[in-house]
C-alpha cells in the first residue's frame, strides 16, 4: 500500500527494496533448482543396527542380534514389488558367493502375506531365512526401526553390529559389491 506514495517520493532506499527482494527470491529459487538434491542418507549409517525379533516363514522366532560377530545383510522386500523381483536373483547369488565369510542374509517381507512371500522365496531360490515384518509387536516393528519408506531397502551390517551402508531403492551389482565389501562379507 506504500508503493503508490513511496515511489512518488523517489526515496532511493524504498525504491530498491522491491527489486532487491524479488531478485533475492528469484536467485534463491535458481539456487534451489540447480543445487543437487540432498543425498538421502539413512539416519542409521554408522549407528548400531536396531534389533528386532520376527517370525520366519516357518514360524520360528528369529532375533537379529543373535548373528552378532558375523556380517549381516538385511533386505526389506515384498512379493508385490517390481524392483524386488529384479534384485532377487542378485541377492540369491550374493548369498552363495559370500558364504565363505559366514555372511548372514536376511529377507524381511514387508506388508506381505506369508504364502505369497514363501512363493516369492521359492521362485527366486532365496537360500536364506525370510521373516515377516509384524507391526503389531514392538519387537517386530522393523520397518519403523529401520525407517524404511519403501521397498526394497537394504542394510549392510558389520560384525560389530554397526550399519555401514544403507541402500534405499533397488540394488545394482556395483552397490551390492561395495556394500558387501564394506562389511567384510567378501
Amino acid at each position: 500500500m506504500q508503493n503508490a506514495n513511496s515511489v512518488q517520493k523517489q526515496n532511493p532506499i524504498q525504491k530498491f527494496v522491491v527489486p532487491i527482494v524479488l531478485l533475492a527470491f528469484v536467485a534463491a529459487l535458481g539456487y534451489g533448482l540447480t543445487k543437487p538434491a540432498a543425498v538421502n542418507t539413512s539416519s542409521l549409517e554408522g549407528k548400531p543396527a536396531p534389533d528386532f525379533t520376527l517370525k520366519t516363514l516357518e514360524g520360528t522366532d528369529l532375533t537379529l542380534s543373535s548373528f552378532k560377530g558375523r556380517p549381516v545383510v538385511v533386505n526389506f522386500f515384498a512379493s508385490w514389488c517390481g524392483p524386488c523381483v529384479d534384485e532377487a536373483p542378485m541377492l540369491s547369488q550374493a548369498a552363495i558367493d559370500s558364504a565363505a565369510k559366514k555372511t548372514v542374509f536376511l529377507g524381511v517381507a514387508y506388508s506381505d502375506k506369508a504364502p505369497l512371500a514363501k512363493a516369492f522365496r521359492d521362485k527366486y531360490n532365496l537360500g536364506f531365512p525370510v521373516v515377516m515384518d509384524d507391526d503389531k509387536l514392538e519387537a517386530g516393528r522393523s520397518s519403523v526401526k529401520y525407517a524404511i519408506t519403501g521397498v526394497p531397502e537394504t542394510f549392510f551390517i558389520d560384525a560389530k553390529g554397526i550399519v555401514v551402508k544403507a541402500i534405499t531403492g533397488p540394488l545394482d551389482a556395483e552397490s551390492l559389491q561395495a556394500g558387501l565389501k564394506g562389511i567384510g562379507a567378501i
Partner: protein
Amino acid sequence: MNNSNLGEFSILIALVFCIWGFVNSALGGSRRDPKLAEVGRRAAIPTFLFATFALIVLEVALLTNDTSVNYVANHSASTSPLWVKIVSLWGALAGSILLWAWLLAGFLLLVSRIAKNDALRPYALATMFAVLTFFLGVNATVGSPFLEVPLPPVDGNGPNALLQNHWMMAVHPVLMYIGFVGLSVPFAYAIAAMLTGRLGETWLVQTRRWSIVAWAFLSAAIVSGGWWSYEVLGWGGYWAWDPVENASILPWFFTTAYLHSLQIQERRRILKGWNLGLIVAAFSSTVFGTFLTRSGIVQSVHSFSKSPIGPVFLGFFAVTLAITLYIAYKRLSLVRDDHSLDSPLSREGAFLAGNLLFSSFAFTVVLGTMFPVFYEAFTNKTTSVGAPFFNQVGIPIGLAILGLMAIGPALTWRRLEGVALRKTLMIPGILAVLTSVIAFVLGIRDINVLLTLAFSSLAISVLFVVTGNAMRQRRQAEGGSSLKALGELLNAYPRRYGAYITHFGMVVIAIGIAFSGAYKTERELAFKPGETKTVLGHEVRYYGLVGEQRPEKTIQAAKLEVDGKEFYPAQNYYGTQREAVSTPAIQYKVGGDFYMVLVNGDPQDQSVSLKFISSPLISWIWIGGLIVVIGAALTLIPAIVSEPKTVSSNVAAASD
C-alpha cells in the same frame, strides 16, 4: 506427413504468426501507426487457427493411439476409455502447456476482436503475444508433445492412475487454466497502461470484466479441485496445503485483493501503483506456481516429475518481473494519486485492510511452501512445513477476512458517521452475539467455529439490513411495492448484488470449512462378511468383496449397506501400476457426509478393514463455491439503469 511432423509444424507456424503479431503490435503502438497495429491485431487469427490445429493433431493422435508421438507413447493407453483419452491432452506436462497456449491464443483472439480500439490496445495485444510466444516456444522446444518416437511401442504407458480415477479430471484443470489465462488480459492492459503512461482508470474499467471472469474460474477451479481430492484421495479432507494447492490459491488471493482495491481507484483515483502491483503479482504467481509444481523443486502429489521445463519457467518468471519492474520504475514517477481518503472508517478503509490481510496470507503461503527449499539450500538438511503451520497462521487471517467481509457492506464510501454505522450494525451485531451464544449453549466450544458463526451471522444480516435500507430509500423516492423496489435495485446494480451473493457464498464456504475441520471424526474397523456394526451413528453392514476386471483397471470393492442404502468403497489397480488408488464411497448429506474407505481387503477370507469418517457440513463448501460463481456471473450483467430521479438514489449508486 505423420502426426508428429504435422503437430510440430503447426506449432512452428503458430509461433511465427505470434512473433509477427508481437512485432507489429509493439511497433504499431510505439510508432503510433494504426496500420502496423492492425496487422498485428489480425495476426491473432492465424495464430489461434494454427494453435487449434496443433491441439487437434494431438487429440487425434491420442484417440487413434498413435504411439509414434512421444506424448501418446508416454501418457496414453489404448485400453483407456474414450473420455480418458480425450482428457489425456492435459494429463501430463507437455499437453497441458499446449492447452494453456491454445486457451491463451483464444483469449488473445477474443481481446483482439472485442477490445476498444484505443492507444492501449496495441500494447496490450503485444504483451499477450509475448506471453503466448513463450508458451508456444516451450511447446516447440523443451516441452514438445510431438517428438517422434523412432520405434513406436505397441501401446502407451497409460495416464497417471490418480488422474483417470475421476471425471473431475475433465473439468478442474481446464477451469484452472482458463482462470490463469484470463489473468493475462488485465496484466496485459496494466503493462499497456504503464507503457503509454495512461495510468488512469481506463485500463481498470476495461479489464474489470475479464478480471472477474478469471477470478470466477479460479474460484470454481479451486473449489472443484477440493471436491476432487475429497472424492479420490481417500483421507476425508479436501485441502492438504500441498505445494500445487498453494500455487493455485496465490493468484486467487491477489486477484481477490485486486478486485476490491480497483474499486477504490475507480472512485477515489488513488492506489494506482498498488493496483498495478497486485495484478502483476496475480499474473506472475500463475507462472511461479507452474514453475513450483513442474520443476520438481518441491515435492507434490501433483507434480508431473522433474522436467527441463523448470528452469525455463523460472526464467520466464524472472524476465516478467524484470521487465515489469523496469517499466514501472520508468513510468511510476508519473503516478500521482489525485485524491485522498476522507476517513479510515469507510469502505475504502475496509478494502485496504482486506488488501493487507490477503497479501499477508499470500506471503505466508509462499513462505511456507518455499521454506523447505531455502532451508535445504542453506543447511543441506531437509525439513517440512505442513498443514498445522498453514492452519495456525491462516485461520486467524481467514477469520479476520471473514469479519471484514461482514462489516464491509455496512460501511459507505468516503466516510461514515458513527451514528449511521451504529444504526446499521445494531441488529446484525446483536444477531451475531446471539448466534454464538446459542451455539455455545448447544455445546460448540471450538473458538474458531464460534467466531465463524458470529461473523457469518453478522455478514448475512448486514447484507439484509443494507439491502432493506436501499429498498426503503427507493420506495420513499419512487413509491411502489418492496418487491418492485428490490427488482429495480437488482436491475440497476447487478454488480453490487452479485457481489453480495458472492459474499453469501463465501459465508457458506466458511461455515463448511469451520465445522468439517473442527468436528471431523473417524473410526477404523475390521469387518467379516455378514457383520453389522454401528459406526459414528450409522448402521453399517458388510456383505463381502466384489471384484470387476476392466481393460484398464481391476476393481476390488467392499459391498456395504449403510442406513439401508448400498455403497461400494473400492480400491482400483491400474495396469502395471501396483499402488492401489482407493475410491471412497460417500453418503452425501447437507448436515454432514459419511465417508467410507476400503483400507485393505483379503480376497481369501473376505475380511476387510474399513475407515469411516464423518464430516459435518462439509458439502457446504461445494454448495458455497457454486453460489460464489453464480454471484460473480451476476456482476457481469450490464446494469439496466432506470433514470435516477432523486438525490437519494444517487447516493445509493455511489455506494455500489
